């Protein structure tokens, strides 16, 4: 299973499933448009890789890596 946490920089991924974590966090991801089928791209990682900068629906979100485990993706 690949999650967004394993994503390589500047490579396009397609979201397969958003599930598994705290309800509030999953709901927030969904509200922000992280739905299955959506294309995402990691465009930056912090020095210790604790946060990724993710491009989705034409805008940028910085997300803690531990939360990215809940976003299952596949290579596009």
């Amino acid at each position, binding site marked *: 299973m690949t999650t967004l946490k394993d994503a390589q920089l500047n490579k396009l991924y397609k979201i397969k499933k958003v599930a598994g974590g705290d309800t509030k966090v999953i709901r927030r991801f*969904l509200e922000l448009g992280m739905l299955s089928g959506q294309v995402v791209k990691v465009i930056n990682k912090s020095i210790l890789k604790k946060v990724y900068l993710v491009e989705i629906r*034409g*805008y940028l979100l*910085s997300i803690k890596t531990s*939360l990215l485990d809940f976003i299952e993706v596949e290579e596009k």
Partner: protein
Amino acid sequence: MKEVLLVGNPNSGKTTLFNSLTKSSEHVGNWHGVTVEEKKKMFKVENEDYLLVDTPGIYSLSPLSFEEEVSFKIIESDNYSKIINLCDLNNLQRNLYLTLCLLEENKDVVVVINEIDKKAKYKVNTKKLSNFLSVPVFVLNAEDKEATKNLKQTLKQKDLKKFKSEYLDQIDFSCLKDAFKEIPLEERKKFCVKAFERNENFFKLNGYSDEKIKNLFSVLPQNSMELIASARYNFLDQIIEECCEKNDFVYGKSKFDKILLNKFFAFPCFFLILSVIFYLTFFSLGAFLSNLLSSFLNLITTPILDALLSIDSPFIYHLFADALFGGVATVLSFLPQVVLLFFFLSVLEDSGYLSRVAFIFEDILGKIGLSGKSVYTLLMGFGCSTTAIMTARNMDNKNSKIKTAILCPYMSCSAKIPIYTVIGGAFFGASNIFVIIGLYLLGVVVALVISKILDMTLLKSENQTFILEFPPYRMTSFKRVGKILWKNVKSFLIKVGSVMITMNVIVFLLSSFTFSFNYTENGSGSMLESIGKFLAPIFEPIGFNNWAIVSALLAGLVAKEVVVSSIAMFNGVDGNATSLISSSILLPTSVVYFASGASILSFLVFCLLYTPCLASISMMLQEIGKKWTVIAICIELFVAYIVSFIVYNIALAFEIFDFWPVFLILLSIVILLVSFVFIYKFIKRKKCPYNCENCSKVCKKK
């Protein structure tokens, strides 16, 4: 009177619109969660009064952090007649998600699309969009007062509530058919949607017990939340397709980030920016303007003081010369520096850089139980702790919020600038620059250490989420520069004029009268001297057993500006004279007398770390409760005493002995301590319980 709510995504410009509709100047910035509480103000539409309520930004009606909960409660209260839903044109699709949430609940909504940048990501056909949503739609720049005129007119119209959330009908709600039997038919769909969203806050607000909510949620399909979200987004895709033209760029992406978020340059750039700000504030520009103001104030106060000398009453003379003019004028002369610091912090806030700072600091701050988002609160703490403490609401779990609020006062606030400059400058002269930098750094280091200790003991960090949007970089407009400056000048003058003058008069009276109400000069036998003398021995180990210094610190509990003005008063420095105060504290005959550089350093450190002003304490009470405020104050006093003690003794050792032996001893102590920590960690390290043959080192087993 009709209440109108201003609702929208974070950083969509709600407060800017609030300011232009009500002609006020509430704090705005390019960051998520500048507004953390509701703000109300009246405005008129053709003789009819409206009350506009600004709310913290939200993404939907399911709150995640504390400030979002504030908005959620206001929206669900239904005590208003209309909602102005502000959307950011650059991120229209996601902003309209909230609009759908509001419309589904049959709220009376006007959609206002904020065109912040000239080149926006979307171009929208308002007429078509208005048809889709069945509500009025405006595109305007929130800063533009003219454009808001039409909007005001619409507030008078009653909405016909024609919006039908048909896109939700394809969802199968049959699993809930028994759950909401007692709910009226027209409300039932809303309850079903809320249940599918697993919106605990909503059901709690409607009197459901925890257990009932759990039972309710147990019958839902696993992907219930996704069903709702994708139904809305599908509808939004359709809207965007038909009403908008899309520009092909990523909102918030910038070439500056290549450097500012670079592995090697990110931190140097951050420190460079901070250094430039502090250099301009304290030394070049700030110092120049302060000197200018100082000589101007001298021009005014000197003739008044001369006139006062002719009055034959020492009480009157000292009341005016010392309490009302002396100290106040000195602190007043720091106005340029304080205002400059606030100004630079505002520009930093406007720039959008702070989201990047949060990004690069999450790595480190995560380790000590904070979040990258705390950076905003802590940076604002350099300006004023009181307002900064409130922004801790940005956090989404309680422990992080309390921790951030407790750490805030360790960021040296602007009120302490006069103390460092006047008292530090007395002994260290030109090299005071290093002392001031050292003090700021010391405050940060102490805060980080306390955070780590709290994280291990009282306030274990829960899983702090960190989902933060990246806004684009923006320049502060010229119009705003003037506003920021004027606002800060005003608030500084008001503070000096009210709190400081009152406190000065109180300190003057207490130090001029004995317990039997006889007038006394130089404080001998006065009430304050008795109190100060009682407390002073406590301060002997940290280098200042002097009743007047202790009294100044006591007065400083109310506001830190009073420390310097009290010292000026005790030493009888008339008029505005930073240099006179500085030289007086080194004279053994003065009331306030520092025997050595070590005791001055210790005093500065104590001022940096001890209890913040009354306003901050009352803000803490409001935000984190009585228990944690008391704990915070205890920690502050304890830490201030211990650190001052260490600093005093080290400085004293340097003064008494040669430099090198002391330095080498200190260095060996530090090396010993560090190696102890490493040895302890090495012994305590956990072995991996899995014995995989090929260790990938990026272990996914939990």
